[in-house]
């Protein structure tokens, strides 16, 4: 299925070996965040606000402290007041989100935490913490938060990005704007213009493993944290900030992670566990229940988006106008910035205005979720583009081909694209048998496309050659998408030894150089490049050792198929195991480190094709066929690449059809469980067909682009476009649940 531009004849890269972590995971042996048990360990419980917005009048912990088994109770006053210390605003927000100081800003906001000998004692003590609140009026949506006279979450919040700066505070944290050309002229040139307004609800990343952390503090101020996260260096940095200590005093060990999707790049429990451990003098474990995960972590933004686009009769987009408001939750930082940059990035459009607002409201602070911000914008833009194609009678792939960004196109967000593979994903869909498969009654077909930047950032790797010639590859990038396999495959290719001879591990913050979070689809690209660099240093070293052994110049030695060979064949080859066995005589252990700040990010594109069947009497939509084509650059591990492609699609189908945060009028979440927050189950889905497109990223040694995120960008529009094709109803509000579809059908027939 893969479209390969060139085949360099790799031996390991692009193969499908057995995953290295599978056995431990299927036998239950793998240690996840909640699995660690330490001698003398206490169990903690967090006390959370039942109110969406309230001032904390007082917290009385005396009753809780007096209870049997209780060893520590902490509140916001047990942490340094970063605002008083003049800290950076974003650090103050991290600290206040971890534990509230003066106000609670959402239902589920932490106000206190306890540690006790048993879980039951901790739960009882948490209930005994008496918090007196002054309830304040709340705002739950961008509409409420942006309304005239809306209650303010942050009394000093002045909108950034507006010139001149507003004099009055509001719930709008910032405005973003991207402009090009002349909008009026562009719409004037259009033969057809479509304008629509869309809304989406907050959705959770839905990782199966709840957040968990164990902390063991020493009396000298040092502490060890074990936690499940997407970046233990990031957990260290954030925890140090909240605790007011130097990062070097904290050691963080990464547990196995049961899903993150962006939601485990932020801290919740870690600094609380450290402070409780310090107060109690014992290790402390904190584990969230599922309802805490829903109420206080994730989600991504609910949004309101308006899109107006025009096309000429030949399918050329002449102008686009996009207005969007994204919920940030309690503190500024919605992904509206990325949304603004990605919204129309697939296309070469001469005239556009993209305007966006980051809006705070009384819901949990949003966290990154797979291509943060892009999916909602794509839902709106790709739906309107589908309408335009219908209006001018053009094939949905052809209209995208007519406007597709290619190498050299000035991206809507600024730079010129280097070599990219968007067109190839469109062609892969068009060439696939699904594109012309017969549709049954009440079935419809939809196409949508998506763009994501992918990230680079900082990574370190160490490669050790063991005494028998096998290798250990050490990185600090938690493996959430198969990175241990990808690292080992690239190392096998570089060193010329079998994949099975390489063990890739994720080391703690004291054992390997700094690594940024596992996020932004960056690890195979950036950490992979560090592994390749370290392997190349090893190969240089091995050639020098062979030269020394043979007493020849190093340029007489080549490294081929895992062995040193003399260029004229005058010496018997030395294998890696030969050289390893004799390393003591050639300079000692064979080991190399490499660190880098990413070289050459490669943008990712995905085009998807969805067939649905809608029951017109119940409004139930079933996805009956699904194809995703994505440019991986190079699929180092095709199994994992397909897993990422399928995973993004499945989460997108859930977002499209059923997932949503439901709040009551008091701002209390009504569906904080997997029963009523409906992620798809296996039987809801057809096999997600994958077409891996490989247009290598010229800036990576193996052409990697990164594959984790862009797959979630097109599905909501693909599903919506398919529903429109099936029942002739344009759904503009997510989720497209049975209730909403039946309402829309009823309106249509009236």
């Amino acid at each position, binding site marked *: 299925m893969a479209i390969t531009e060139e085949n360099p004849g790799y031996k390991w890269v692009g193969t499908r070996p057995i995953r290295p972590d599978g056995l431990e995971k299927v036998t239950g042996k793998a240690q996840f965040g909640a699995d660690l048990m330490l001698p003398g360990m206490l169990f903690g419980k967090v006390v959370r606000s039942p109110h969406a917005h309230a001032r904390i009048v007082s917290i009385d912990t005396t009753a809780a402290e007096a209870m049997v088994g209780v060893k520590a109770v902490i509140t916001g006053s047990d942490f340094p007041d970063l605002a008083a210390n003049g800290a950076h605003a974003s650090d103050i927000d991290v600290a206040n989100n971890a534990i509230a100081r003066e106000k609670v800003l959402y239902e589920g906001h932490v106000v206190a935490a306890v540690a006790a000998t048993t879980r039951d004692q901790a739960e009882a003590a948490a209930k005994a913490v008496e918090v007196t609140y002054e309830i304040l009026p709340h705002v739950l949506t961008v509409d409420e938060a942006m309304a005239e006279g809306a209650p303010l979450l942050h009394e000093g919040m002045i909108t950034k990005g507006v010139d001149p700066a507003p004099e009055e505070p509001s719930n709008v944290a910032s405005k973003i704007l991207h402009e090009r050309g002349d909008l009026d002229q562009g719409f004037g040139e259009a033969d057809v213009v479509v304008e629509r307004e869309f809304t989406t609800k907050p959705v959770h990343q839905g990782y199966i493993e709840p957040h968990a952390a164990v902390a063991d503090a020493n009396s000298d101020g040092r502490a060890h944290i074990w936690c499940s996260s997407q970046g233990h260096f990031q957990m260290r940095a954030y925890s140090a900030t909240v605790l007011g200590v130097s990062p070097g005093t904290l050691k963080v060990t990464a547990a196995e992670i049961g899903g993150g999707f962006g939601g485990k790049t932020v801290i919740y429990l870690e600094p609380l566990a450290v402070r409780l451990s310090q107060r109690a003098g014992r290790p402390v474990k904190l584990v969230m229940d599922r309802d805490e995960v829903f109420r206080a972590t994730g989600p991504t933004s609910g949004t309101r988006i308006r899109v107006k686009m025009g096309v000429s009769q030949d399918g050329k987009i002449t102008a686009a106008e996009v207005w969007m408001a994204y919920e940030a939750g309690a503190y500024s930082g919605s992904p509206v910035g990325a949304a603004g940059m990605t919204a129309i990035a697939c296309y070469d459009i001469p005239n556009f205005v993209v305007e966006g607002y980051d809006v705070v409201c009384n819901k949990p602070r949003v966290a990154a979720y797979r291509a943060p911000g892009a999916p909602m914008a794509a839902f709106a833009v790709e739906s309107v583009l589908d309408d335009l194609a219908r209006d001018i009678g053009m094939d949905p792939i052809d209209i995208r081909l007519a406007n597709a960004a290619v190498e050299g196109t000035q991206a809507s967000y600024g730079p010129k694209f280097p070599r990219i593979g968007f067109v190839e994903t469109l062609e892969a869909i068009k060439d696939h048998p699904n594109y012309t498969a017969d549709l049954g009654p009440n079935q419809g077909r939809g196409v949508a496309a998506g763009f994501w930047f992918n990230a680079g950032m900082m990574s370190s790797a160490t490669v050790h050659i063991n005494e028998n010639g096998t290798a250990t590859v050490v990185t600090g990038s938690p493996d959430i998408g198969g990175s241990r396999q990808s690292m080992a495959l690239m190392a096998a290719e570089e060193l010329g030894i079998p994949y099975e001879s390489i063990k890739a591990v994720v080391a703690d913050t004291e054992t390997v150089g700094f690594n940024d979070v596992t996020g932004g689809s960056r690890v195979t690209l950036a950490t992979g490049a560090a592994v390749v660099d370290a392997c190349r240093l090893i190969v240089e070293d091995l050639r020098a050792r062979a030269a020394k052994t043979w007493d020849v110049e190093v340029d007489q030695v080549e490294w081929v198929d895992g062995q040193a060979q003399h260029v004229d064949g005058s010496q018997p080859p030395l294998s890696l195991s030969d050289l390893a066995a004799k390393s003591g005589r050639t300079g000692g252990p064979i080991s190399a480190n490499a660190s880098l700040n990413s070289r050459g990010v490669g943008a990712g594109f995905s085009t998807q094709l969805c067939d649905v069947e809608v029951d017109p*009497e*119940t*409004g*139930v939509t*079933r996805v009956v066929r699904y194809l995703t084509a994505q440019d991986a650059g190079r699929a180092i591990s095709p199994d994992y690449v397909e897993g990422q492609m399928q995973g993004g699609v499945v989460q997108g189908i859930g977002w499209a*059809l*059923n997932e949503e945060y*439901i709040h009551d009028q008091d701002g209390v979440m*009504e*569906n904080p469980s997997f*029963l*009523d927050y*409906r992620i*798809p*189950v296996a*039987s*809801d889905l057809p096999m997600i067909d994958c077409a891996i497109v490989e247009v290598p990223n010229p800036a990576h040694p193996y052409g990697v682009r990164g594959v984790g995120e862009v797959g979630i960008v097109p599905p909501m529009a693909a599903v919506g476009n398919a529903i429109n094709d099936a029942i002739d109803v344009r759904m503009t509000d997510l989720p497209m*649940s*049975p*209730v909403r579809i*039946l*309402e829309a059908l*009823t309106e249509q027939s009236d």
Partner: protein
Amino acid sequence: MKYIAPSSVEEATSLLSTSPSAQVFAGATDVVPQLRAGRSAPELLVDLKKIEELVAIAKDDDKWTVGAAAPTANLTEDEAFSGEFPGLSEAAGLIGSDQIQNRSSLGGNLCNGSPAADSVPAMVVNGARAVIAGPNGTRVLDVAEVVTGPGQTSLEADEFIVEFELDRMPARSGDAYLRMIPRTEMDIAVVGAGARVTLAEDGSIEEAVVALGAVAPTVVRVPDAEAALVGGTADDETLSAVAEAASGVCNPIDDKRGTVAYRKQVAGVLAKRAVLIAIERAEQRNGSK
């Protein structure tokens, strides 16, 4: 909290009469989540699964007897039972997941008192009777009379259901149960509809029962739909009358799982579809038991 697993009905009833806060359970698939969520805290948990009658499934010439605590997986995997009561078997097979069905039971599904319990409309349309044990012996009550409201039953605190009796399915009869959920499994019915019909020799409908779940505080019969069906055939006009009657008896709530308008409309759709399936099955059971 104490746990006791009595081995006889008498032992169980005597435990219940001496421990006012005792709670019986079968598979515990509802009880354990309720305990964990702090919604109940009984002093004594009485496990009924060790009592032979409560997990037995048997039939004679007149009736099937299904133990109240028998795992629903045993029912759905019983070919004879599932062949005779496919609607009830399918309803039991919708509860939770495969793992849950190794523990869940008809007695638990009924006595948990959820308006959305899948097996209840299917038991009601088949005229199932509950054999209830108490300190003074046993009594028999129609399943339709057991639940009185959400989480409420007409059983006394020291009573529990031993088994269900179902008369053998007559010739030219069939049952069906359908539910609407947004997903395909692992969900709770937004609307459930059960139907059973018996056809006359000429193919017209001789008897019909229609019952709905999740659209009122308890499972509700739809007498107007039944009346519309009896004596005729399931033509479009009759089916419209069935749907209208089903929508009409609904007394649902607006909640996170569905709106009043949605539940009413879909109750009509599912009632109609369930009737059609029951008729098709009745036509296939032409003469034999």
